[in-house]
């Protein structure tokens, strides 16, 4: 929380036009291999002071508590091993990769909300 809420805000909704909301993308991203990689590799995750196990716990907690879309029962939880594997490759072009992930989703928003991010 300490390291994330400064920019992502405590409930994850961010700041329109500046910090994207994570509430609507956590579950859709966690549903794809590329998306799961992204969630670990964004600098805020990868460069945080958390250990691989702690980061896995935080990502799982976020999906459970911050996502506007409920976690589907079959969605795999993050493990320390999985996090360690992705984390070795830091991501630099965050906006570019995120835009690609969002475009690849059939829909990332609950009905009635703007997709503009």
């Amino acid at each position: 929380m300490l390291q994330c809420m400064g920019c992502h805000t405590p409930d994850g909704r961010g700041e329109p036009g500046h910090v994207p909301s994570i509430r609507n993308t956590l579950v859709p991203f966690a549903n794809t291999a590329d998306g799961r990689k992204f969630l670990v590799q964004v600098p805020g995750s990868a460069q945080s002071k958390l250990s691989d196990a702690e980061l896995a716990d935080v990502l799982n907690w976020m999906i459970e508590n911050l996502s506007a879309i409920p976690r589907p029962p079959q969605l795999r939880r993050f493990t320390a091993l999985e996090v360690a594997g992705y984390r070795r490759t830091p991501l630099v072009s965050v906006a570019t990769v995120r835009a690609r992930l969002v475009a690849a989703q059939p829909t990332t928003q609950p009905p009635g909300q703007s997709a503009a991010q």
Partner: protein
Amino acid sequence: MGSLGAILVGASTVPLLPVARGASPADDKAKHVNDPTSCDYWRHCAIDGYLCGCCGGSENSCPPGTEMSAITWVGTCHNPIDGKDYVVSYNDCCGKSTCGRCLCNRNERDTPLYIPFQSNDYNWCSGSGKTNIPYHCSTARIVSVAR
């Protein structure tokens, strides 16, 4: 932001001793550690800027006509009253010229610009609307007990 110690605005600048800002002599510090308008206030351990309590706001509220920035840096400060450590969020109030009263800079656990979330050298009035850069003053909001 600031890193400027206590500049006297509008008067001739009085040079200050380059000690950690806010480290008054021990007995003064004890008096001020619970005063939100003092640089020695316990929540101000990593603050950098003008104290909103001196500007029409308070340690957790903004002066009239300004807007609180959602993005910010955070510190972990020790409360001597209850002995707990707290996560403190230094949300800036934005949208007006700098307040100019009660300048305070302390750098406990402060990090350089390349580690943003604990860096007080950024002007965190960076966002949309009123929060887009004009910096007025800084609050010191409690987020939670630090674990």
